[in-house]
């Protein structure tokens, strides 16, 4: 191999900076690593399968189910259908969200990224936009598929359709929830900068710690639980505001959005300030 001149042929290098270019770049990064396919594939697979499994169990055990529980299911079949699948599949999104930024640190890629995009906040914004839109698209498909499967299976006991009050909003809402969760995880990943630590902390929080706060006694426990990011955010997956919910579905999602925004601000502040 001989060293040839590094001069480009005419007009191959016409560089210009634009946010569109940053979006393009982040999309290439996202689609060109395996973890993205795995995470989104798992979500698309697990969400409908668990919906089918758990709704199937509900239907199979219908005769042994207490009348009070039956009426609870009948009051919001949408929440029953959606809730069974996406709670279990949400770790896939937590992993993806953390990986998207933390893996750049673990591999050293972050230095190449920042050399190409020294405006770090624009880079983070582009990353967040691409990630959340891709997650939203896949989640919406998974949510609608799950709803139709679940509604069909449940139909012999309780009728559920997209036309029910709040049902369509709840189905779209689980997509919005998962998209927000990806941003929440991205922020944690950007703050922690380590894949294992980031993934563990997000999943522990979402699946274990946040639900456990419910067990704290008295009013304090009730309020603390209601305003936790993911617990509040989950309300968007219900067709109606249940008895005992302190927030409406949209209020809950708003609370989740505020938490996520606060974490993203912190992540942006640290990204700008820390050495890469």
């Amino acid at each position: 191999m001989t060293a040839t001149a590094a001069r480009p042929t005419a007009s191959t290098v016409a560089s210009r900076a634009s946010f569109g270019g940053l979006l393009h770049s982040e999309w290439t990064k996202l689609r060109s690593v395996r973890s993205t396919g795995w995470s989104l594939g798992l979500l698309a697979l697990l969400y409908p399968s668990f919906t089918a499994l758990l709704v199937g169990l509900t239907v199979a055990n219908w005769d042994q189910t207490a009348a009070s529980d039956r009426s609870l299911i009948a009051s919001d079949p949408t929440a029953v259908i959606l809730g069974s699948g996406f709670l279990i599949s949400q770790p896939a999104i937590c992993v993806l969200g953390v990986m998207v930024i933390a893996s750049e640190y673990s591999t050293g890629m972050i230095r190449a990224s920042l050399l190409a995009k020294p405006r770090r906040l624009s880079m983070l914004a582009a990353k967040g936009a691409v990630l959340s839109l891709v997650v939203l698209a896949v989640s919406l498909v998974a949510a609608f598929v799950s709803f139709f499967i679940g509604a069909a299976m449940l139909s012999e006991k309780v009728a559920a359709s997209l036309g029910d009050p709040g049902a369509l909003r709840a189905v779209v809402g689980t997509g919005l929830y998962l998209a927000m969760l990806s941003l929440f995880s991205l922020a944690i990943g950007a703050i922690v900068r380590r894949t294992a630590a980031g993934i563990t902390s997000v999943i522990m929080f979402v699946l274990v710690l946040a639900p456990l706060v419910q067990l704290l006694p008295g009013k304090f426990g009730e309020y603390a639980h209601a305003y936790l990011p993911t617990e509040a955010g989950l309300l968007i997956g219900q067709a109606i505001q249940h008895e005992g919910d302190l927030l409406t579905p949209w209020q809950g999602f708003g609370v989740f959005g505020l938490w996520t925004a606060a974490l993203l601000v912190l992540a942006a502040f640290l990204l700008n300030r820390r050495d890469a």
Partner: protein
Amino acid sequence: MIEAKNLTKRYGDKVAVKDLSFTVGPGKVTGFLGPNGAGKSTTMRLILGLDHPDRGTATIDGKRYRELTTPLAAVGALLEAKAVHPGRTAYNHLLCLAQSQGISKKRIYEVLDLVGLSEVAHKRAGGFSLGMGQRLGLAAALLGDPAVLVLDEPVNGLDPEGILWIRTFMRQLAAEGRTVFVSSHLMNEMAVTAEHLIIIGRGSLIADCPTQEFIEQGKKQTVLVRSPNAGELAAAITRAGGAVTRNDDNELSVEDMDATRIGEIASAGGHVLHEVVPQRGTLEEAFMALTRESVEYAGTGSTREADAPKSGGGAE
């Protein structure tokens, strides 16, 4: 042109770079030398806006790195072999960098061809050898056809053929009028590659001079003299203008005087000579001596052997 002004960077208690100022001009390869841990990589990260200086500024053609709108078109950098996601192919790695500033796909194939990676363009970078990783890093550095190149230990991990290739390549880039700033902890490597040297030790500037000048200094001769009359001979040589160091009872090291003159002095004084051996110090030794002296001169404490340059590989 790269300009560092009073750069200072601390990591916790440790001062990595201390009040460092220098200028790197276009059209030549400038070697950035220093023992491992001298602060070369830190300085390069400060220039490239990856780390923030505690004091001072680093600019490229008058602008800080973060102010560059299309940085890859201004500066190409090779920081470490694998600043690459191992699961991404070489092509996709370059593609995501190129897209961020609207560089065409055609240019990606061009640089892959330039560094000899065309055949593995669609292979995952995780399977690349260290040398291939360096080539990919170099391809990324050349993507935007930059006028300034900052290369941190580019020969690391390369086989002799690869070293020769990169050496020729750097000279060629400089001949095209580019600013080429390349770090190394190997004096001998820089002696054959760089036209200008900037040498640092413990984060401070030690030397900033043309390579030729440094080589001349490095060639300063020492003559080893063995004689049973070492004491008297030493006095005679000193009187005649030589600089004498007494090694032991009958051995002297003489500087600033050649072997012929020493022989004449010994003969004139009737001193018996057992041995007169001119010694030519290697560049590597001159470099070591220089970095050691600077540390002592700076009064920062003892000279640790660990700071001396090693001739083996290993980045800092």
